[in-house]
Structure formats: C-alpha cells, structure tokens
C-alpha cells in the first residue's frame, strides 16, 4: 500500500514539477475569480454539468488520438452554450443541466472503455493529473487562463450588476443576455483547463468552494474575489506539493485543503454573525 505522504528526494521532485506549479497557480487565480461570479450567478450546478461534458470531450479526443485539451474545451463549450441558450432561468437551467450531465458522463465512460491505451490516462481525466502536465500543455493552459482573466476584468462591472440585479441592469441598458453567454463561454474555458488538473469530478472544489468560503467572511466584492483567488491558489499549490510525496492523485489533497478552508471560514463567519447560515433565514 502506498503511503499518503513520503517526502524522500523531495527537492529533486520539486524541480520536476515547476511547470505544474505554474499551471496550478494560474488555475487557482482564474478559478477563484470566476468562482466569485459562479456564486453571484448561482451556477455551481452548471459548473458540474459543464465539467462532465468537458470530460466526455477529453475522453473522445483521447480515443481518436486528438489533443486532449482541445477535446475538453470543445466539450465544455458545447455544454456551456446549451445551458446558456436553453435555460436562461434558474429552474429551466437546472433541468437542462440534469439532463446533460449523465449523458456527458456516460459518453465519457464509453470513450474511455473503448480507449486501448494506458489506464492511468483514463482516470486522470476524472480525478486529476496535474503532475503529468508537460510544458506545451502548460503554455495552452496559461494562454486560456490569461484570456479568461482579462475578459472577466473587462466585463467585471456590468457582469456583477447583471448577476446581482438582472431587471435593473436590463433597464439601465446592460446587454444582459450577451453578457450571460460570454460568461458561459469563459466558464467553459476555465472548466476545461480545470478538468486537466483536478479532474472532472472535482472541478467544484476549485470553482465553487473557495468563493463560497470567501463569501462566509466578507461582503465587499473586491475582498471576496481576492480571498477566493487566494484560497484557490493555496489549495492548488498545497495539493500539488503534498501529492508529490505520494502515489495517489492530486485531487484528494486539493479538495481537502479547499474544504478545510471552507470549514474555517464558515466558523469565522458564524462567529462574526455577519452572514447567516441558510437555515436561519432572513429577517422579515
């Protein structure tokens, strides 16, 4: 049985994973930032749905020998646009996602079952494989991350306005529908690079948990988004560094760190009584 932690030859290992660390940090920054809007727009379930189709796309690419990153981007773009176009309202959206998600997962499993290659590649897509990310892949991930980051910053104010108060934003002339589709595309791109690192099943740990944690301790949008990015980066880098000394995938480490941060923030939030837990409800 492989140990959970084994730090012999750690220094030598570290030099091998510098590109993974860069990829991890970038992903943390983008994931944490977009997670802020995922929470503001109530889209955690959509993130999960997109990641399953992204997984199917990547598995399909693996099967036909195409580029896995491209496959996962295509899969998540299709999912995001379907969700964005078919279900603009929360209720419709959730049923569209509920229909798409098992289909995507099933498709992905079919592709993997047909794939004759190494089985490590198969499960990497579901559970994460950042340590195996090579330099050209890091380049692709970095470009995608930068595009998403810049685009998000440019649409920040109208997007936040539309996320918080769609009716008034519409009345004030914000192109709410266009922004919503643009956001879904950015979300799809982020999910597809996250699938490469933490795996399809655990994308939520990076795109939802850090932002949810930050919301427990702050309300200023700037502070919430900075904290969310910080939490996501800490989870990613901590996960990669801990996974180095072990023979198991990176994702349990990332999800555990991110979950512990969430628990701590929840504790702090409750102690400060600034944000009520869902079951307390609102004053009348």
């Amino acid at each position, binding site marked *: 049985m492989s140990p959970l932690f084994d730090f012999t030859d750690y220094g030598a290992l570290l030099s091998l994973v510098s590109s993974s660390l860069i990829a991890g940090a970038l992903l943390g920054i983008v994931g944490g930032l977009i997670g*802020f809007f995922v*929470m*503001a727009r*109530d889209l955690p379930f959509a993130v999960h749905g997109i990641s399953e189709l992204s997984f199917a796309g990547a598995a399909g690419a693996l099967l036909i020998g195409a580029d896995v990153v491209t496959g996962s981007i295509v899969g998540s773009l299709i999912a995001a646009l379907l969700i964005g176009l078919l279900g603009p309202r929360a209720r419709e959206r959730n049923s569209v996602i509920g229909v798409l998600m098992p289909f995507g997962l099933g498709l992905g499993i079919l592709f993997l079952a047909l794939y004759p290659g190494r089985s490590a590649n198969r499960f990497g897509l579901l559970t994460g494989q950042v340590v195996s990310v090579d330099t050209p892949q890091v380049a692709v991930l970095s470009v995608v991350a930068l595009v998403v980051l810049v685009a998000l*910053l*440019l*649409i*920040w*104010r*109208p997007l*936040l*306005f539309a996320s*918080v*108060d769609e*009716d*008034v*934003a*519409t*009345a*004030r*002339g*914000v192109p709410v529908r266009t922004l919503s589709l643009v956001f879904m595309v950015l979300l799809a791109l982020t999910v597809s690079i996250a699938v490469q690192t933490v795996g399809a099943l655990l994308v939520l740990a990076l795109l939802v948990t850090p932002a*949810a944690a930050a*919301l427990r301790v702050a*309300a*200023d*949008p700037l502070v*919430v*988004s900075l904290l969310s990015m910080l939490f996501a980066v800490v989870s990613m880098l901590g996960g990669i560094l801990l996974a180095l000394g072990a023979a198991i995938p990176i994702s349990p480490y990332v999800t555990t760190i991110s979950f512990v941060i969430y628990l701590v923030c929840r504790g702090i939030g409750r102690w400060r009584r*600034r*944000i*009520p837990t*869902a079951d307390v409800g*609102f*004053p009348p």
Partner: protein
Amino acid sequence: MTAALRFEDAALGFGGRTLWRGLTLDVEPGEFLAVLGPNGSGKTTLLKAVLGLQPLSEGGLTVLGEPPRRGNRRIGYIPQQRLLDASTPVRGVDLVRFGVNGTRFGLPLPRRRDRERAAELVAAVDAGGYASRPAALLSGGEQQRLRVGQALADDPPLLLCDEPLISLDLANQAAVSALIDRHRRARNAAVLFVTHDVNPVLGLVDRVLYLVDGRFRIGPPREVLTSEVLSELFRTHVDVVRVHDRIVVVGAGHEEHEHAGRLP
C-alpha cells in the same frame, strides 16, 4: 417646456393580444403620475416601452424629447423590492455603485469620483448606517432606500418606479415615497409610479392612469377614483369608499382588484 413623456395614440400588445390602445398622454416635468390597474393590465409593459425594451405596436412615444432607447441615462428606474440570496457578494453601498458605474465596461479600477458620488447618494437616502453591511442582510426598507439612491445616481429628470413599496411596512412606504418625492421637487423630475395600491402615495399623485382590460382613464385621483368611473372601467359594480384619507375599492367579484385587499 417639452413633456417628459408623450404618448400619441399609442397601442401596445404582443402575441396577438392588445394590452391597451389609443393612449394619448403628456406627462409634464415635475408631475407625479400613478399607474394603477389589476395584474396583467399592462402597467409594467408601459414602463418597458418607456425604457426602450418593448416597442409600441402602434402610435408614437417620446421620452424626454427623444424616441425611447435602451440604456437612457436620463431615466432612473426603481424596481420592486426582492430578497437577495445570501450568496449575493455585494454590500449595500455596492447597490448604489451599480447606479454610478454599473454599466461601464473596462478594467474595474476604483475611481475617487465614483466613490464620492456613491457616498453622496448613500447620504442623500439616509442609508449611512447600514450601507457597508452585506446587501442580503438588509431589511426591505433599507434595500429600497439604497435602490432609490441607485436610481438617482445620474440625477435623472424622469423616474420610473415599478411597485417600489410592495412588501414594505407603512413607515418604510412613507420614507421611500418621501425620497422619491424629494427628488421630484428638487429636480422638477417627472415620476411614473406603477402601483397596485395608491394609498401610500395618494398625497403626492397629480394624476392617475387607470388601466383595466385595454380600457383606461386618466385624471386627478378624485375624478378617476370614483364608484362611477371604476364601475365603468371594470364593467361591473365597484364601490369606492373613502375612509379618512384612504381610498378603498370594493369590487363585486373582483378579487384580483387589489385595493380591496386594504380593507381592515
């Protein structure tokens, strides 16, 4: 002086159904017009037409001297209060900031001018005590004051209000309508106020537009809100009763007519 709003033989309908037609109406600067009527009579759609979100099916409409267009910064819009989800990542003051720079694309670098304007608006609606709290934790009345602040960001000569007092208690209804009225007087702004209950603003209203099933009447409250006129509009017997300074409308089988809900 040009009218703040001018409807000329306007009609509005969609999906083969006409909400109203033949509407000719000038709303003057400084005038407070209450838009009344049962649900589905096209009150909110009328606001959408003014906002440039819904084209008229016939006739003409000019808004502050120009054709209606989306994103007109000279219109302030106050929606009805709704509870914000606990995961809404904004504070009270951020609601006001949406009015100042919420439609602006580009890097969200903080600007001192924006911050100062938001602070002015927060002070103008007496929201200083709670503006830094999470918006989701604010009471309905606090939230609505901030939304008034948001709507006043561009010092608009026309205010559109869509049920802004709904689900507020009497004290907050009075406070929020007073803020709206204060802006009207200071700026000589026209106010289009959609409501199902005219009583909280009865003292401020110059004229009412009462819409029922495509029919409508326009005039001062004492001329329109009478048993005779409303019975004709509703095509059934309706009693309008004045109790102290309130108006209670009792419809025969018209439960959807919501003034009736104000009966003790």
